[in-house]
């Protein structure tokens, strides 16, 4: 019976940790999405690269806790896209900037994909 109680406690702890992690990942995705939404539609070479650098640093600081459940391949793609976005903003390449921004929104969405309870994810 003691083993059964321990098993129940372990199961409860696992569910709790998974839930806490899911909340953390979702919050992170919301923060990153909000930061991306705050970027201008047309880049300003004097301010936009600095905003993107701040966003990249934010992602860098969250990379370790995110790495507990998100594959580093996914976060690496976001970082790479942020570098491209920064370069496009600095070069005032609006087309490249918009394309990378759209790609980034999709990649950030991917970070939280496994934490969303959705039929498509489960199946």
């Amino acid at each position, binding site marked *: 019976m003691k083993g059964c109680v*321990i098993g129940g406690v*372990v199961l409860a702890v696992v569910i709790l940790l998974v839930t806490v992690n899911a909340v953390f990942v979702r919050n992170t995705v919301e923060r990153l999405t909000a930061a991306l939404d705050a970027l201008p539609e047309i880049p300003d070479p004097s301010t936009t690269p600095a905003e993107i650098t701040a966003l990249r640093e934010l992602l860098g600081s969250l990379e370790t806790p995110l790495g507990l459940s998100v594959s580093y391949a996914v976060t690496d793609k976001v970082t790479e896209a942020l570098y491209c976005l920064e370069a496009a903003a600095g070069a005032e390449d609006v087309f490249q900037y918009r394309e990378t921004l759209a790609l980034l929104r999709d990649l950030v969405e991917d970070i939280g994909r496994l934490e969303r309870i959705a039929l498509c994810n489960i199946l």
Partner: protein
Amino acid sequence: MVTILIRTLIVYTALVGTMRFMGKRQLGELEISDLVTTLLLSDIATLPITNTELPLSHALVPILTLTSLEVVLSGVLLKLPSIKRLLSVRPAILVRHGKPDRGVMRSVRVSAEELLSQLRQKDVTDLQEVEYAILEPNGQISVVKKAAQREATAADLGLTPDERGMMHLLVCDGKINRLNLSMAGWDEGRLFRELAKRKLALSEVFLLLADDGGRVTVYPREAV
């Protein structure tokens, strides 16, 4: 990870369900849920090892979930026999009073050839010798022979032999097994006295066994 947790639960339920449907013949020595857990764990554990892109949690969460589920389930099943009946297979009586039960054999998909083969492995060559043959939940067939076919026991003969218990391996290859020594109720002093009686050094002993009745058997190294 939420998805992984849900997936784990779904795969576990599906595997237990399908194994239950497959019946006890697929099980060998394990209960259904044991087998499912073993199958899943062996595969899951290798995932983050072979695929380094996967975080370790992708294996740890399912492993912890499965093992704790297994333990909780076994505890719950002890308390709730009605649920146990749903998840566990019950023993099936294949032969009753020397007569094979065709209906039961069909339902558990045991052919006459398989039954006879299993009986032969238990030194039974005639169905008439069998009082009961039972297919156990772990897939093994237990045989209860008819009284007339059973080997005569000391009790049948009205004898009361000394209770010898079981043999304990106290020395193996010149090394003392201290756990067995204490289980047999021996100490090293008694062991060395026993060796001195036989004019043997510890290093000269290949095996030294003692039963609960105090009978000691020694196999010296050179004799083996």
